[in-house]
């Protein structure tokens, strides 16, 4: 079973989506390592190292995603898992912004996939399957 680390980054406590993501990915046959809400970049990275996960799925709902996600790719490289896949989704910036610009900002930070608000986890499952292989 492939491992995926999930969690909600920063000072963010939105727990509902996180619980649903755990439920959905588990049902889809993955070993879900859920570090929960209020998680730091380090928490994500440590969990990925410990469980040999090739994918970290970062949720950010509360609007501070931009601040919270900065430098995460560098930290991964430092920790020796520079090639781990980083996804981010939820409501990752403050307010209703042009999502093309938002995506660019996050891709530039080293995220591999960036999802707009309202992308439910079911829609991302296809990408996950593709990226992790079957």
């Amino acid at each position, binding site marked *: 079973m492939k491992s995926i680390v999930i969690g909600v980054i920063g000072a963010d*406590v939105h727990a*509902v989506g996180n619980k649903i993501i755990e439920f959905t990915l588990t049902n889809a046959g993955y070993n879900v390592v859920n570090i929960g809400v*209020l998680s730091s970049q380090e928490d994500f990275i440590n969990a990925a190292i410990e469980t040999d996960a090739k994918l970290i799925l970062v949720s950010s709902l509360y*609007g501070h995603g931009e601040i919270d996600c900065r430098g995460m790719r560098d930290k991964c490289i430092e920790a020796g898992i520079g090639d781990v896949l980083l996804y981010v989704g939820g409501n990752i910036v403050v307010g209703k912004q042009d999502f093309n610009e938002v995506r660019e900002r996050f891709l530039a930070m080293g995220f591999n996939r960036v999802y707009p608000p*309202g992308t439910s986890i079911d829609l991302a499952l296809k990408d996950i399957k593709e990226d992790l292989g079957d």
Partner: protein
Amino acid sequence: MELKNKKLTETEFLEQREKVLKDWPTGSDPALDLSVAIDYLKQVPEHKNFDYKLRQAKAEGITMIQPRAGVPVLEDHIRLLRYLEESGADFLPSTIDSYTRQNRYSEAEKGMLESQKIKRSLLNGFPAVNHGVGSCRQVFESVNLPVQARHGTPDARLLAEITHAAGWTSNEGGAISYNIPYAKSVPLEASLSHWMYCDRLVGFYEEHGIHINREQFGPLTGTLVPPAISNAVAIIEALLAAEQGVKSITVGYGMGGNIVQDIAAIQSLHSQTEAYLHKYGYKDCNVSTVFHQWMGGFPEDESKAMGLIAMSSTVAALSKTTKMITKTTHESFGIPTMEANGQGIKASKYIINLLKDQTFPDSERLLRERAQIENEVDSLLKAVFAVGNGDLVQGVIKAFEQGLIDIPFAPSRYNMGKIMPARDNEGYIRILEFGNLAFTEDIKAFHRDKIAQRAKFENRPISFQLTVDDVYSVGKGRMVGRPGNRKA
């Protein structure tokens, strides 16, 4: 020494206060001298005092309206609040950013300064502690309505000090409602102690003739919370506040979606809060209720979102709640623009005014649901007092430890998290999985029966899938998450 539900002595309060004010440099502002603050608050005119205006609304039997709103930069925040005032708000909020809520003031400072620089909000609210009393007064003096801090802070002591001293005459929150849904690892004992302080501060002002309102955060996680659970928490927080000398208490409720259940919930919330306060000897409190428009996931389409806002307002108006918190058509995307917020206020207020003279008629179904909720609340509170050996604070700590009270979808590790709610066939929020919830067997049988009816109707097994479907359902345009609607 074990924390007890006992009014802090003035000495205890003042000793603690000295430390609290040292948490961040803005705490040393001379405006925080209590006598200075009292003088300032004495000059707050009646129409800018929360408690006064709530009493007025109650006397006239009307429902007041308040949005949520807060941006990091002072000038922008003032402009925002003025705009909301013009749009028809009756009370103004100042929603506090999430770093402040976690007392991470240096991160808030960074976000505030950077937002000023790049002229784009990097914080999801107004960092009142970092701004300090002076700026908060500026906010207050720039508007003509009462102002309140709205947040989600387990330790809001410094925030309360700064905002009250600045003339903000209400503070939202509570030891449970601003911990369990808003934190992962803050012990209840800590938030109980910290909110005791916040309440005591209001009690202190009350002793000096200044009426400050304390509002409890009813919706909790905003997601399929059975009314008896949120009402029980509301009543507990009202009792805790009253013990510290708070006299103006607003208890809250987040719309569940079944109209009969929502109206029953508001009605019993009001009457049971008053009854419990009375029972425990707090006889001179002014209790009001606040109804939150739908607090779960919103639909993306703005017309649908506006529909949901107006539908929520219809229910609120018929329930005769004292106040209603409004949402916006941007809810599912992110912090709303000023304009979107104003539109939510306008539509909401329009409906409230339209239905001013109407109430929801008493009916067998309504009375039955009310009795059901009250019975469940009594069952929960009885357990809390029992496990605390009569002490409410110890009762709360132990009840959560043992899962006697359990809040669905809460992030806190001090919450058992075993309960699973789901809707019944008419959309009432019921319970699928009780964990250790302190319900009598009769009550549990009632819930099981209701859920079984639905599962039978939908021809599927009773499982967490019902809950998951119900989490998505309103966003997708249904109240009950039927299997067929999953891919809507």
